[in-house]
């Protein structure tokens, strides 16, 4: 009998997973034909259709127009009060990734046994292998109109390879649009004794490594062609992973923390003849508009609007930094649009879809025309990644990635009623305004927190929770810092904190959930990436 007891829980959980996936898939599988009737349709392929019909069949848009007949086999959605938009796409993000836990073992590194991963050199790391799709994540995005996203690891020097997904199916094999699209290049060196560990070292390393990859590619193909009389080159997984990007067959994405990184990326790309995108994490591309224009650069524009530490504003104290973050940085997208620089929005630096959407709204408030914002979330990213024949506008034959909204999509209070991803329908319930989920936990008290990974450290947090409002004090090796304005919803919590370390202001965003006397979550540090944390309540 021991067998059975051992297998029962496993069998149970397997069947549970099966049931869950069945329930998520069923709606899409049963109804492959949908028709939206009498809706306002923003096709982006032409002028808006004020009152029209749209037919979806087998994942694709079958027909769209003012007087399209409704097929008999279609389930009809009354669109009289609705506007249909092409589904939004996150031009570059990392929040859907669940990378293997990184524990930096300093004893190992001190003994000289470091790996390429310790050095931030992971060109083989593929977003496809580590993406974490699921109903909960999809819902967060669908609610705000996002039905596709570009995902890429963003830590280190060669950060890894990206992938594009439709937010349609928890099975990544079904949700995948494109795999290994771009290679990330970051300028955050490791902070211990491995090469490269300085920004200047990173630049030297990049030149050597990309040059080596081109050489590897040439030597390998030449050997494969001739063989006789030639010495066979050594194999290298890293160089093999880099080769396609180093030879400009595929684009790289430079993860730029400030305007200097952008300038440097432009000259690196020119010197090494790379195909590239600039991911503007620092929000300073407005400072280099002439250079971007001259190089015909495509930009992935973030919306966190935090002045980087290198900026003149940050160097002059907190007040000046905050003023710039309010008055100058949110204008960045508007300025790019005005200058005619092609850009798509990226969620990097914003911790969740909600903050991303709020950031986009800030850009609109700061002068970005709404239609430009919409393009930066639809047509432009689709074209950037070679998907403009499949996504970005509402046209027959394209993938049925759509959102049905009451009122405007890019509004302060977006009311998305339905999202279609790969022709599958997701209905979104109306949240009662102003009411988040009631807290089911109380964090009040002292907690011992352990942050993992690159910024590993132990902290003590003294939380004070009053209903959904969260504040507290955090004792760190760098001193004590206070925070207010956090919130608790259900068993989830989040708060933002500004710490000053060695004269540098760093913004940290904590989010997690509580399970009894334990909490787990993640902390996002601007462009420096994400780390996981755990905490336990200190009794008494």
């Amino acid at each position, binding site marked *: 009998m021991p067998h059975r007891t051992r297998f029962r829980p496993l069998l149970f959980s397997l069947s549970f997973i099966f049931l869950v996936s069945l329930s998520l898939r069923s709606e899409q599988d049963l109804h492959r034909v949908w028709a939206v009737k009498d809706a306002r349709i923003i096709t982006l392929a032409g002028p808006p259709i004020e009152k029209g019909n749209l037919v979806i069949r087998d994942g694709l848009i079958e027909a769209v127009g003012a007087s399209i007949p409704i097929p008999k086999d279609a389930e009809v959605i009354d669109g009289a009060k609705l506007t249909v938009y092409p589904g939004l796409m996150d031009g570059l993000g990392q929040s859907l990734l669940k990378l293997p836990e990184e524990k930096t073992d300093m004893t190992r590194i001190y003994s000289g046994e470091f790996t390429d991963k310790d050095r931030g050199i992971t060109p083989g790391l593929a977003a496809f292998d580590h993406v974490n799709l699921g109903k909960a994540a999809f819902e967060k995005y669908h609610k705000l109109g996002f039905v596709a996203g570009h995902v890429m690891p963003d830590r280190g020097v060669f950060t890894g390879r990206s992938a594009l997904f439709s937010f349609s199916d928890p099975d990544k094999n079904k949700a995948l649009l494109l795999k290994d699209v771009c290679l990330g290049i970051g300028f955050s060196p490791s902070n211990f004794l491995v*090469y490269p560990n*300085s*920004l*200047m070292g990173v630049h030297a390393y990049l*030149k050597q490594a990309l*040059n080596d990859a081109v050489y590897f590619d040439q030597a390998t193909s030449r050997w494969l062609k001739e063989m006789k009389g030639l010495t066979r080159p050594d194999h290298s997984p890293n160089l093999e992973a880099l080769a396609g990007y180093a030879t400009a067959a595929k684009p790289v994405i430079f993860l730029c923390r400030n305007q200097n990184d952008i300038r440097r990326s432009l000259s690196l790309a020119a010197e090494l003849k790379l195909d590239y995108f600039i991911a503007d994490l620092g929000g300073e591309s407005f400072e280099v508009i002439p250079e971007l224009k001259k190089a015909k650069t495509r930009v992935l524009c973030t919306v966190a609007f935090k002045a980087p530490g*290198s900026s003149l504003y940050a*160097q002059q104290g907190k007040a000046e930094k905050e*003023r710039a973050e309010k008055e100058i940085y949110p204008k960045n997208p508007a300025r790019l649009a005005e200058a005619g620089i092609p850009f798509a929005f990226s969620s990097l630096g914003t911790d969740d879809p909600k903050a991303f959407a709020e950031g986009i709204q800030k850009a609109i408030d700061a002068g970005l025309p709404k239609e430009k914002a919409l393009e930066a979330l639809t047509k432009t990213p689709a074209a950037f990644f070679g998907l403009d024949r499949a996504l970005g506008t509402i046209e027959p034959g394209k993938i049925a990635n759509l959102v049905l909204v009451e009122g405007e999509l890019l509004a302060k209070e977006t009311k998305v009623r339905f999202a279609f991803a790969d022709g599958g329908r997701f209905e979104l319930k109306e949240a009662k305004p102003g009411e988040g989920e009631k807290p089911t936990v109380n964090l009040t008290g002292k907690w011992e927190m352990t942050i993992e990974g690159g910024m590993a450290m132990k902290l003590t947090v003294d939380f004070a929770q009053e209903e959904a409002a969260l504040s507290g004090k955090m004792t760190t090796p760098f001193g004590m810092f206070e925070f207010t304005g956090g919130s608790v919803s259900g068993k989830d919590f989040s708060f933002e904190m500004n710490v000053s370390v060695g004269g540098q202001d760093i913004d940290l965003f904590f989010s997690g959930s509580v399970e009894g006397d334990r909490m787990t979550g993640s902390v996002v540090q601007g462009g420096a990436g994400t780390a996981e944390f755990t905490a336990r309540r200190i009794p008494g």
Partner: protein
Amino acid sequence: MKPRIAAIGICAALLVLSLCGGLTAAEKAVLLKNGQVITVSGGPIPGGDILVQGTKIVKVGKGLSAPPGAEVIDLGGRWVMPGIIDSHSHIALEGDVNETGALLTPEVDCKDVINPQDINIFYALTGGVTAVHTMHGSANPIGGKGISLKMRWGKGPEELVFAGAPLTSKWALGENPKRSNMSGMGPSRYPRTRMGVEESIRDEFEKAREYMKKWAEYEKTAKAARDSKGKVPTPLPPKKDYRLEGITDILNGKLWVRCHGYQSEEMLSIMRLCKEYGVKLVCFEHGLESYRITNELVEYGVAVSTFADFWGYKWEAYNTMPQAAALCAKRGVLVALSSDDAERMRHLFNDAAKTVRFGGVTEDAAVRMLTINPAKIMGVDRWVGTIEPGKDADLAVFNRHPLDPFTVCEMTMVDGKVYFDRAKYLEERKKAEEEEKKKEPEKKDGGEV
């Protein structure tokens, strides 16, 4: 509020300056009248004038008349000297100035990480500094490449670069490359002795010679292949190695070597090594024990970029005295006073005064240590370092003699353009403060409603 006001002041000053810059035609003339001109190239000219045309000094003398349309700046008897040149600096660089992840890193280049937003560029101007040589740190026997910059505050990274200045290679001897004072900062790294530091350099020289040989052989076979018109297969070139190409540039004299060192015996030893390989060793950085080996320094033509009275901060930095710079200068060594520090940079003129006070050098010799001497070390003496016709109009104006302990730098000009004007800056700042004050009660009223 203070930083905000300072910020407004700086921004306003930038705006005023950029407007002036906008009006400046390429050849706009400026006449600086009635100053105590410290020319450095000749004697001082009391009540002298300097005529600037575009970016250059065109005339220096007494009673010069302003050409039509020229801007006239009355110095009112104030002192004007060539802009101060700081030949050992680490400002305007982003990120760590040391790449400690490898022992020898000549492939690393400060040019890649110029940070034009570093506020220390502005602070340099407030101390009369118009050019710096900014470089890699001293963690490696051979570190990264350094670069000379002009303090053109507000300009982009490319425009800061001092055009024509030779690129340099930073070397370091002694405790820093041995990581003597870095216990607990990671695994111990070869070398741990001064002998080892030198040997690591020699090893790399040999590797680079092999590398050069490989390329020479390749060129030969490639030529043979070309000449054979397809009969001989084209060879695959050797793989480009940025590190060894850096060393090759050192061996070919393309990079000027700036070597950090304190102890006389290792300075002697490295001079012998450089002689053996034909390396262009230009200058010892800090070189606190240089006064012990002045004959050898003069014979080999190596300069010293040092401090006036800064020592004792580590074991190898004890054997010196405030007379050291003066002793070297008197024995014919080319001496520059440099800062190695963004704060000291702002009052290098005080350091020069100390060599007069303690070492008894002439005032002229002391001023040279801030101007033409560092210009020679940086290979830019054709353009800067003295006030004479044909040179760049890089000037610093002081309210008293620059060696007076109470002197204040009042105006700094780079390429004929005023980048810092203390009176204007303070005026703008005052205005900003007043406006801020005006705003505050309004805010209060607003808040109470």
